[in-house]
């Protein structure tokens, strides 16, 4: 149970970073922290105490297998996360070129 609560705290740390930081790159890092906490939660769900990898050997079956499904899903989600982070970074570099700053308070052309 502690692990789940730690995941949740990590999620909130990321959310705090997204809300309070002013630097674009720090916002991106905070988003990555949130992302990883979600992945961690997902991977923990598949964990079984003392479980082994789910390659079933009929002659010598193990007592507990870990659930392989969340691992596959997290792997897929990591690939998506790679794409999102790359996209965000490209946007940040472009923004820096246009505005000459990473400070989000200076970047406010759009309002209303």
């Amino acid at each position, binding site marked *: 149970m502690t692990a789940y609560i730690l995941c949740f705290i990590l*999620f909130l740390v990321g*959310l705090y970073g*997204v809300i309070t930081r002013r630097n*674009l790159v720090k*916002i991106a890092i905070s*988003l990555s922290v*949130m*992302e990883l906490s*979600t992945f961690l*939660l*997902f991977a923990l*769900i598949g964990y079984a105490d003392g479980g082994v990898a789910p390659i079933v050997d009929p002659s010598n079956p193990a007592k507990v297998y870990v*659930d392989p*499904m*969340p691992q596959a*899903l997290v792997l*897929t*989600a990591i690939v*998506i996360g790679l*794409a*999102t982070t790359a*996209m*965000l970074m490209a*946007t*940040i570099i*472009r*923004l820096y070129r*246009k*505005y000459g700053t990473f400070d989000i308070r200076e*970047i*406010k*052309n*759009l309002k*209303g």
Partner: protein
Amino acid sequence: MNPLIPLFVAIPLSGAFIDMILGRFIKGFSRYFTPVIILALASMSIYSAATAGTNPSVYYVGGWEPVKGIPVGICMVMDGFSVLMLCIINIVGFLSAFYSISYIKRFTSDNFYYALFCLMTAGMNGVVLSGDLFNIFVFLEISVISAYALVAFGVEKNELEASFKYQVLGSLASFFILAGIALIYWKTKTLNIADIRETLKPGYDRPFYIFVELLILSGFGIKAAIIPFHAWLPDAHSSAPSPISAMLSGVLIKAAGIYLIIRLFFNLFEINESVAVLITTLGALSMVIGVFLAIGQWDIKRLLAYHSISQMGYVVLSVGMGMILISRGVRHEIAMLAIAGGLYHLVNHAAFKGLLFLNAGAIEYTLGTRDLKEMGGLGKSMPATSATSFIASMSISGIPPFNGFFSKIIIIIAAVMARFYFLAFLAILVSIITLASFLKFQRYAFYNREDAKVEKGIKEVPFPMVFSMVIMSLLCIILSLLAFPGIRDAILTPATDILTDPAKYKDLVIGI
């Protein structure tokens, strides 16, 4: 098994990469190839609507059929509601792609534009077809990542800032959705929508259930820009190139947001009254606040974007009313009417809002500005744009011969019959304010300044743009036929049936 179902994803996906490869060697290849493949998809979806609407089908990818009523593989479901969404996506997609042929000439690197366009279409087709929570998430991300890139396609200050805002909020939404999926998987050990409903039923754990519902609702609420989560929408939709604005506003917020809210809250969760009331409240709020935010705008595309929030409020409101009635277990036929009205408005909104964004693009293409104060007198020099935008404006404000009137009147009648008099009053009020706002748009853009001050050299836009706008305006008129009983039974009733009767959906997916 219907072999068309996976092709809806495979064709645009491979089309995107063929564009990238051959477009490099043959100049202008992707510009003409993309409309062709999306036209093929559109005709496939119309064919499916004619055949699969009453006769839904399931596709087990890789041939993994369910074993003893437990689904083991990934399944794709084509039922009445998915077919409706497929038609919207591919028809609006085709018209936007065709419109882009001349519009996109002012940008460089159109190969990337068309590849991203195809990827977005593939993602949305995947979202509406998959019957599996995690696949929905993957396809959703494909479509929204392409949308992020397309919003930033102009790479100027405004576009980049809008895209950054959209990306931060969109990523937050994705994490909420992923956390919701993780929690659902924890309880049920399955990801199939129909199977989840079966597994959740015996161990009904109310606080957990409500928590997951709120996570999912806020995630998809951000993607659909319902009112407390709307901050990104006006920036993103007004900064994108105009055909993309038409796609984003006409299709993406529906496929990635509203469709999934409706699908999951009817077919995955048990409908309970507190969540239904919450959804109705959110819908009413975004309907009212959206229109009040829109009325003070002078930038055409921002004005249209705020109206998107408001019109989506109508859809959410009427679907929410249906959910309240179903959860109370009273008067099923009025609930059906409310849901049908919501879906009908969803279809209509795709037609008229897509058309309005294409009009805005045409005005921007000739004048180079989006500020209403700098326009005027375009009615004479651009007759096609003026006429089509008049049809769309009357349609969105609910004036009788056009489609918007019929869907709004169905929603209002349903609200009155269900004795939600206050909501009916709000719907009428918002409709009147919408009319006022669009009269302002018409007057300042097309009719003001009759005297002289029209600059010389303003011509009608090129043929592909005119063609798309005329077809869209014909759709605005033809879609009003959907209100009449015979046609409504063939198209809208299968969609409402599959939503209100989860047992039917379960039988379809898992088999009996």
